[in-house]
């Protein structure tokens, strides 16, 4: 369904393009041998190269190049066998060289695509414009001192992939789905850890609006460095409404860089970037054109893992899951792997229900992760086996699962220890039924008089009498027979 903003003069459509900066997973920086680990002491992971000292020269990290190629292939994009590093010149306190080494006219990766999955079950293909490699800047801290900003260069020179979408996104939801899918693919590929809190994945959103049905492209504003999917969506929505209001009151939008203030839910003009930039890009004379060996690109292509879209398809076909369930399970490689371990040789729908229901619930409740689960895939599988062989009813299985969480013990052990085995002995169940019927002759009469609704109450009473261990199907059947008598 089209997302539109209802204005006073009519309906407005959003045009959104996203630029995602994804930190490359690598040990060392893009052009220096300093480490990339997050959270180190200030300026401790800085080489003289990263600090822009006189006479220092960049030498590129092969793994960062390979990671960019891997990502490009994962986005089904064109890999440019020759690319060029350029200098983007501007002055800023956390940019020690006075320029950022980036790629401009000839990026390492060209056009690609990314398929986003929307809540209504539909998918949409979003164009990828390009992916280029560049250096990160350092970090300025403005709130440490009343009159000074502090500069930490640990990030300076860390490799980033800037992934630029085409302006194909039409709603905050689509923008969110794009980031989520991109993050998922990057994590599958192992090229970016996707950690938005630590800044490994940052998003700039280019937003403009136009009257519904128009195909013009109006002035866009760039909202810089938003660090969560929810904030990106809020920022886009706020910014789009602002544009509509400005246009409808007869104003014009200036092309500018804006900042999202998450505490106020607003965007505002960035004062420090007020004056127009002139980056004076030119090929970095300290570096030569990056020429890739086609064999290396092919080798990387062969080593790509099954990516979320393919995996989702397979889950739908191989396990008979709904597209939605499959989508949820494949979002993280670890969840998909966990599910597959649980589902292997078992009822896959039951497995999906358990993984997405009780297991994900348990993750939430315990704060653990799929990588470090509170219940192993093998134990969850064994639990499902106990349901299938009739040892446990679904109801009992939930109790056993709770105990598994609590004790970490295998389900079979818990069944033995706690005597939680389901009662399937007909005479024992009949005895319990007789007892309940004898104690409630008036209700028995009502049922026999046609008040079927009371059957559920009787089932509950029988279950209670057996401490929940009676096989519920048997209880239903035997109870129905008794009532006919």
């Amino acid at each position, binding site marked *: 369904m089209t997302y539109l903003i209802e204005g006073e003069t009519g309906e407005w459509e959003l045009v959104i393009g996203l630029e995602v900066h994804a930190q490359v997973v690598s040990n*060392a920086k893009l052009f*220096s*041998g*300093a480490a990339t680990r997050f959270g180190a002491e200030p300026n401790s992971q800085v080489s003289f190269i990263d600090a822009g000292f006189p006479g220092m020269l960049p030498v*590129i990290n092969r793994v960062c190049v390979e990671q960019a190629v891997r990502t490009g292939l994962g986005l089904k994009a064109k890999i440019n066998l020759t690319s060029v590093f350029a200098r983007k010149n501007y002055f800023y306190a956390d940019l020690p060289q006075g320029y950022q080494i980036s790629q401009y006219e000839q990026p390492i990766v060209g056009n690609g695509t990314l398929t986003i999955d929307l809540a209504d079950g539909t998918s949409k293909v979003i164009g990828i414009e390009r992916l280029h490699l560049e250096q990160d800047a350092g970090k300025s801290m*403005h709130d440490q001192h009343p*009159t000074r900003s502090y500069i930490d260069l640990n990030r300076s020179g860390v490799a980033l992939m800037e992934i630029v979408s085409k302006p194909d996104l039409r709603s905050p939801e689509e923008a969110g789905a794009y980031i989520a899918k991109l993050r998922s693919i990057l994590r599958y590929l192992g090229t970016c850890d996707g950690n938005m809190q630590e800044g490994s994945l940052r998003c700039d959103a280019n937003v403009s609006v136009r009257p519904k049905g128009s195909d013009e492209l109006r002035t866009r504003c760039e909202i810089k460095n938003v660090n969560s999917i929810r904030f990106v969506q809020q920022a886009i929505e706020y910014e789009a409404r602002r544009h509509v209001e400005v246009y409808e009151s007869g104003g014009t939008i200036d092309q500018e860089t804006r900042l999202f203030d998450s505490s106020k839910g607003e965007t505002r003009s960035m004062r420090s970037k007020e004056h127009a930039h002139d980056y004076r890009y030119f090929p970095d004379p300290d570096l030569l054109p990056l020429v890739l060996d086609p064999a290396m690109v092919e080798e990387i292509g062969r080593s790509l893992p099954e990516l979320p879209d393919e995996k989702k398809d397979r889950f739908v076909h191989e396990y008979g899951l709904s597209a939605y369930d499959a989508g949820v399970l494949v979002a993280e490689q670890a969840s998909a792997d966990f599910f597959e371990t649980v589902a292997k040789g078992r009822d896959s729908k039951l497995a999906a229900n358990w993984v997405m229901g009780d297991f994900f619930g348990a993750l939430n409740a315990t704060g653990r992760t799929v990588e470090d689960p509170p219940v192993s895939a093998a134990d969850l599988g064994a639990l499902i086996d106990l349901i299938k062989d009739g040892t446990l009813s679904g109801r009992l299985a939930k109790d056993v699962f709770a105990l598994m969480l609590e004790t970490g013990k295998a389900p079979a052990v818990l069944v033995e220890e706690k005597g939680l085995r389901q009662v399937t002995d007909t005479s024992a169940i009949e005895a319990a039924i007789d007892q309940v019927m004898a104690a409630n002759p008036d209700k028995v009469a009502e049922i026999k008089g046609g008040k079927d609704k009371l059957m559920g109450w009787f089932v509950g009473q029988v279950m209670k009498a057996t401490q929940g261990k009676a096989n519920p199907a048997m209880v239903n059947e035997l109870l129905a027979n008794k009532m006919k008598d």
Partner: protein
Amino acid sequence: MSLDRTTVRAIANLARIAVPDEDLDHLAGELSNILTFVEDLSSADTDGIEPMSSVAAMSLPMRDDVVTDGGYADKVLANAPGGATEGFFTVPKVVE
């Protein structure tokens, strides 16, 4: 090509070099002379010629992804004008 005061001021701002107003005219004259001198280039026939950004007849060498550098914040900070503060370089407070 001759540059006016406004252009010189704009370039000086891009280059972050303070130029006193009284020097602008003189500087504009000097820079204009230089531009006139290099303008001879426009008469060179370069149709179909690829720009040459390096004479090195090789492609970019790559290094292994190994941590070999850094870990010497003291040395990085040793030349900081006025000294470092709490392990940081400092500048006048920037308002974003």
